[in-house]
């Protein structure tokens, strides 16, 4: 096993493990935050795995997750907005920590692949992932305040 896979394994065991624990127990505000952060734990580990298996085509998975993960969180933010308005989640620190994790992973991988098309793709994924998570986190803590009938 090479270092990339080891890093991915650790990230999965800690990050995804924590997300699973957070999403299946506790009050609703904690669950939605854990659901949002599961994307930011899994997406970097997919990138690391693609590097570890030496298969650039596996990066497509991370790209799709960076696109659709925050969409999934927006679904919950929108359709649970009633319950979340009464008890809004506050996870500013965790969100930025997750964003930092994504940024560090992307930068390290960029340094590993060198300037090429693959690096551009990595940067796009990083931007989508971090932007998506920050926006989804904001949406959870009151982005859909006015939604009632729609």
């Amino acid at each position, binding site marked *: 096993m090479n270092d990339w896979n080891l890093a991915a394994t650790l990230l999965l065991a800690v990050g995804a493990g924590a997300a699973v624990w957070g999403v299946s127990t506790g009050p609703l505000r904690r669950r939605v935050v854990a659901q949002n952060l599961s994307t930011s734990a899994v997406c970097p580990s997919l990138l690391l795995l693609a590097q570890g298996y030496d298969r650039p085509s596996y990066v*497509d998975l991370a790209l799709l997750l960076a696109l659709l993960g925050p*969409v999934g969180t927006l679904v919950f933010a929108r359709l649970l907005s009633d319950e979340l308005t009464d008890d809004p989640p506050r996870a500013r620190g965790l969100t930025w920590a997750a964003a930092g994790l994504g940024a560090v992973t992307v930068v390290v991988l960029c340094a590993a692949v060198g300037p090429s098309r693959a690096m551009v793709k990595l940067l796009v994924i990083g931007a989508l992932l971090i932007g998506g998570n920050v926006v989804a986190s*904001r949406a959870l803590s009151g982005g859909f305040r006015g939604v009632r009938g729609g």
Partner: protein
Amino acid sequence: MSRRTRLWLVAVSGTGLAALLVAACLELPPFGGSSHPYGERAVRAALARHTANTIASVNFDQRAYDTLGEMSILFAAVLGCVVLLRQARDEHRARPEPAEVDLPVRRYALIVLPVAVVGGLYVIAHGQLSPGGGFQGGVVAATALHLLYLGADYRALERVRPVGLFEVADSLAVSAYLVLGLAGVLAGTAFLANTLLPYGTFNTLSSGGNVPLLNAAIGMEVACAVVVLLARFLDQAVEIEQGNGKDDKDDKDDKESEKENGKENGA
């Protein structure tokens, strides 16, 4: 059957099933073994037909008939949903109020929407080369369209999504798959045989003969099917309301017990 008897039945049959399944698992070829006769033959056949992604080759060439079956299940499921979720006689449509969405969320949705649709199309187009294909890309493109509902509001989605058109496109895609299959018969070979088109250069977009065409047909079918499905569900959840404003008691009780249930879970 009472709840108690049912639980007993589940426990007994579940234990039996578990024992049988575990016994079967112990006899399966060990995980990670190196004997995969079908896999090796499939890879060889895919390479002979210049298809870089063997899984796409299995789906749209070697086992294209199986995919036809899957596609008909998908089509039938969508048809069933459309019939089940149509507007009943005692229901009326209410205009949903426009939503107030936070500005960053709205901007994010409007920026990511085209990116995600293009991403979906990319996944469809490169199906026979890299991981992906019509099934995955179709779902991505269709889901991306609904960012308009999540980020803006329902009416914006309705304006860009003529459901009737998508229903027609869905059926057209199914027919396209069948016509491509029949073309093989007309050309003197077999149904869905990949012999019509040149196989092309390995690892380019036009390689693999029939595979890119069937892949595109499936992509269109899945995308349209998901849009139609979600349109019906959104109709039910957002627009259609019970006509006679009557509040029956059972329903209220049910809702309250559900709420309590949720609180217990949440605590």
